[in-house]
């Protein structure tokens, strides 16, 4: 049935299954970047940052605008992508930190409902900005990377250039983040603050600076995710933040909120569930499946998959 030049599989079913898994994996990696922003912020200030998904959405529009301008100037897709990957995280990081400074910082000692409601408010504001930035209709993100299957055609498998891009960008970022949190002094300060802010402060850690840094890093990760999302999915709209943010947050909860490897694992599971459910059950029910899993996890194992094992909460 198939040639022998590529990988040979027994049946078309298996090929289909593997293709679905590849899609799930890349989607999962994408969600992981967003999930990390949620999980780090939650680990430190115990806030479900509802605005994070919309920050990601604004990042997409920023990348789109910037990409359009750079493309017109240089005409080189590679330079455009490189610049987008540099500037968008910076934009999102500072926007996220700015929101923390102006909105959440004053509410650190307030009841937990206050920052949460504020976050919903910020999310509304971001959505309105996105509505004016991109209009009420979905817009196309320029396909700067030629979509090409990297595997031999006759293997029946699909692993495209954009899939590779997702892996190539996200994997180093996540490894870098893990090393950063494990071995730098700021990373150590983050873990200390997550465990006990008061004790951390008594040890001479500037907690507010640590929190600001957390928002910066979380925002930067969302910014990277925006560019990748635009290049991979190619359609963006002002309402995309909510849904993607929710998937990412589900991933963070699934992995055990506050736990970095947990968020990545959770995101991969979510990505897999989403694409398997789309393929084998019904695409229209995929979202519901994700939330059924979320509820099941919360009910039976509220600490998430990796939550109980590790005590560190960064």
């Amino acid at each position: 049935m198939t040639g022998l030049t590529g990988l040979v599989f027994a049946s078309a079913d298996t090929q289909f299954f593997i293709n679905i898994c590849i899609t799930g994996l890349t989607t999962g990696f994408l969600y992981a970047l967003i999930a990390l922003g949620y999980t780090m912020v939650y680990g430190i200030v115990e806030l479900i940052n509802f605005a994070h998904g919309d920050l990601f959405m604004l990042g997409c529009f920023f990348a789109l605008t910037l990409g359009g301008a750079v493309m017109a100037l240089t005409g080189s897709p590679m330079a455009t992508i490189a610049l987008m990957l540099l500037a968008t995280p910076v934009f999102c990081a500072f926007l996220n930190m700015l929101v923390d400074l102006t909105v959440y910082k004053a509410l650190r000692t307030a009841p937990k409902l206050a920052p949460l409601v504020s976050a919903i408010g910020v999310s509304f504001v971001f959505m309105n900005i996105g509505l004016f930035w991109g209009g009420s209709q979905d817009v196309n993100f320029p396909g700067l990377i030629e979509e090409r299957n990297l595997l031999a055609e006759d293997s029946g498998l699909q692993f495209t250039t954009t899939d590779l891009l997702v892996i190539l960008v996200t994997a180093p970022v996540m490894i870098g983040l893990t090393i950063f949190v494990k071995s730098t002094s700021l990373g150590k300060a983050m873990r200390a603050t997550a465990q006990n802010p008061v004790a951390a402060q008594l040890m001479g850690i500037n907690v507010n600076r640590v929190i600001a840094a957390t928002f910066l890093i979380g925002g930067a990760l969302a910014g990277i995710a925006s560019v990748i999302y635009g290049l991979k999915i190619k359609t963006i709209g002002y309402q995309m933040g909510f849904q993607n943010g929710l998937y990412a947050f589900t991933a963070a909860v699934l992995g055990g909120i506050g736990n970095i490897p947990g968020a990545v694992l959770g995101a991969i599971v979510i990505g897999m569930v989403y694409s398997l459910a789309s393929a084998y059950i019904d695409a229209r029910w995929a979202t519901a499946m994700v939330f059924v899993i979320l509820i099941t996890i919360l009910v039976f194992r509220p600490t998430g998959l990796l939550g109980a094992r590790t005590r560190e909460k960064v």
Partner: protein
Amino acid sequence: MSSGVLRKLAGLLVLALVITYPLIPGLNDKIESMLGKKIGDSFPTIFIYGILALALNVVVGYTGLLHLGIAAFFGIGAFTTGILTVGQYPFQFGFLPVLVVSTMAAALLGGILCVPTLRLRGDYLALVTLGFGLITVTALRNLQEITGGMQTLNPIPPPKIPEILRCPLESLGLTMSWTEDYRLFYYLTLGYLLLVFVFLRNLEHSRLGRAWVALREDELAATCMGLNAARLKLLAFTLAAGLAGMAGSLYATKMTNTTEPTRFDFQLSCTILSCLILGGLGNRTGVLLGVFLVAGYDFLFAPAADAWLQRNDMNPNDKGYLKFSMWNLMIFGLALVLMMRFRSSGLLPKRRGTTTGKGA
């Protein structure tokens, strides 16, 4: 004491105004022609949102649990109504039985949702309610064979006016057509809103209401006093869901169809929550003020202002940023943020320490 009397007087004055507004001949027409927009039709929706907000207030305001999926129960009420009334189903019940069944159905689902969530802490509980809301919307949209999906279930017939009411209504100058005279739905929904309002006022002062407040203030202390926290939460969730279902039933009847399932999404839950936060969590009057401000902006002010701009050629190219209705997310968002920062108990905060209601 005097501030309490003042509050009561102000409340009665507003109530009198709301009741007499449609009866003053020509007033609504005059306002409509001034604004260039039909507004009479929007009032019933605002009242229904009021019921929905009061329902959410039972969970968020009284027991202090964050509920982000109230719109789902609103939707369940609306679709139950749809199934029980439209022509393609064999039921075709009358208005009141439908209202009761819709309320029960939503309450039942609310109770079922509550059972697994009882153990969860604050944020996780909020997430489960959110997730439940999204699953409900997805289900309503996808189960096309039952719910009609995006095609909605229609037409839902208006309630039959009992013969005894016909005469007094006609003597007030109301015509007996639900489609032509907005005042029938106006009074129907206003009546239910007042009913719910009074019911909740009595409930607040009952044993159950006080138990909820005790639970909100300190769960540990409350359970030490012998209160069954799980049962109380279950009751709050069930009651909120039931009231929301009732609001949904009224909404579907008013709209004459179930409206698209996507209307009952997270956005609506959030909007209702903003009304609570804005007006004052736990305070019924405050909640209604919040609804009036938020829904008033959405349904009355923004469209009227846009129409005004349009008529005066101040927005010739139909630019989005020159339309008030395009800014509502920004305005609600900023309102929430500023509210939390500077007046976190809302415009009309609930009075503390007077939960028996009689005050000192």
